[in-house]
């Protein structure tokens, strides 16, 4: 196989269904990283800034502790928000009109108001009234409720993307409502849901930083502490960014892998 210079960088439209050879893929990925590095290198080279990595490095246990807390919050909120999203999406389609109204109200209120306000309200008003003092519990719940509202809309979109003829077919062969969701709707909806869901999950992880307002000592809170103690900014923010990326990237990759597995021709 003779590769022309052009074929290292360009695939014509009729070739786009075929997989790209790995050396070509590698080259282009390296090129992308190189361009990114170039921009970063140039920007930082223009910056007049006294790097102080040594001092910040002394506080590395702050970062670890915060990152670990954020990981715990994220995993719990991810699971909880998925459950909330699913229940809300199903309630929206329920025969009971009050369930529909409740889910609609919930989604609109949560989507339309700032997370910051919701977290404060949840902790200082609701949790206080019910005498719940566990910040972590309240924080995870508030975050899950926030994210669940968005996720429910993603689920609803996916469910509604399954055509009426599919539901009719399921009815005709005698599947129950539950079985119809299990064997017909979800396996088809998942394709539509996954890409949007990956974005929602990444947002959730980053939104967990707002839990610092109720003094949950998560990743961002810790980074800010170190920043204040050492009078350094970027030395704290760069590890912070990388730490979040380590959490979000596996989710994106995982959903992409799932997407490939659940895909089918139409």
């Amino acid at each position, binding site marked *: 196989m003779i590769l022309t210079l052009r074929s290292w960088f360009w695939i014509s439209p009729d070739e786009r269904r075929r997989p790209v050879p790995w050396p070509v893929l590698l080259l282009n990925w390296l090129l992308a990283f190189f361009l990114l590095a170039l921009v970063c290198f140039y920007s930082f080279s223009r910056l007049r800034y006294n790097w102080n990595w040594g001092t910040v490095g002394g506080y590395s246990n702050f970062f670890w502790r915060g990152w670990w807390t954020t990981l715990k919050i994220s995993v719990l909120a991810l699971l909880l928000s998925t459950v909330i999203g699913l229940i809300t999406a199903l309630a929206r389609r329920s025969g009971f009109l009050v369930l529909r109204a409740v889910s609609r109200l919930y989604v609109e209120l949560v989507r339309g108001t700032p997370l910051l306000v919701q977290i404060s309200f949840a902790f200082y008003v609701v949790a206080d009234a019910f005498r719940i003092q566990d910040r972590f519990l309240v924080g995870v719940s508030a975050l899950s409720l926030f994210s669940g509202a968005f996720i429910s809309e993603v689920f609803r979109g996916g469910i509604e993307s399954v055509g009426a003829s599919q539901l009719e*077919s399921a009815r005709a062969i*005698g599947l129950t409502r539950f079985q119809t969701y299990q064997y017909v709707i979800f396996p*088809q909806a998942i394709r539509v849901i996954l890409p949007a869901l990956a974005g929602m999950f990444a947002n959730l992880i980053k939104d967990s930083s707002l839990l610092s307002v109720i003094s949950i000592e998560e990743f961002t809170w810790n980074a800010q502490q170190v920043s204040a103690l050492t009078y350094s900014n970027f030395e704290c923010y760069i590890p912070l960014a990388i730490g979040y990326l380590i959490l979000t990237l596996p989710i994106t990759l995982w959903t992409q892998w799932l997407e490939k597995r659940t895909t089918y021709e139409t």
Partner: protein
Amino acid sequence: MKLRATSLCKSFAQQLVLKNVSLDLENVRTLALIGPSGGGKSTLLRIMAGLEIPDSGSLSMNDCEVVYREKELLEHRRTVGTVFQAFNLFPHLTAVQNITLALEKVHRYPAAQARDIAESILERFGLSAHGHKPPAQLSGGQRQRVAIARAISIKPKLLLFDEPTSALDPEMTAEVLEVIEELREEGRDLVLVTHQMGFAHRVADRIALLADGQIVECGPPEQVLDDPQKEITRQFLAKILKY
């Protein structure tokens, strides 16, 4: 089969689609419903399939009254096989899985047995080589034959076809009609909505013409198609046979 419909009425959004439809058929193997579009034939078929609930009136099959309540309808649907115009196969499942889904999850066959049933029907329909393929990789005629295989796999007491060849080109229409004729020869009870007059003439022993929500004429094909008594029937046939 014995089929009795008494004063069936059905309307959609203020529009009366069936107006007091009554039928009384005994010892019929194949009933063909014909008539102009919007005449109500598909709605009547869907009421038979338990997919639509009539506003009033009743329907009984083989002296068994169809109860139009969700729970009973679910049971009813499990005993009839319905084939749709647009095939309505499940795109995420293979041909075999399309058939085994109902066998396993509704009729509780063990997986291996369901698979055997599916494969033997596909073999009969000349689709052995396509069992592992999803619907997207099958031709229209093959899809419809898989849909028919799905419908008969559960050993239905009645097979319902809603314009099974309307979405197919002539060559594929032939392969699907052959399968339907074969089923009739096997002695299965069929009801089909069709625009294929020649086919209706050949396979049906009763033809009912529905127009404007009413049964205009009902009788053996020699009578309805060759010697129509009503003006509406004559007009309809003249129009459809012209092209």
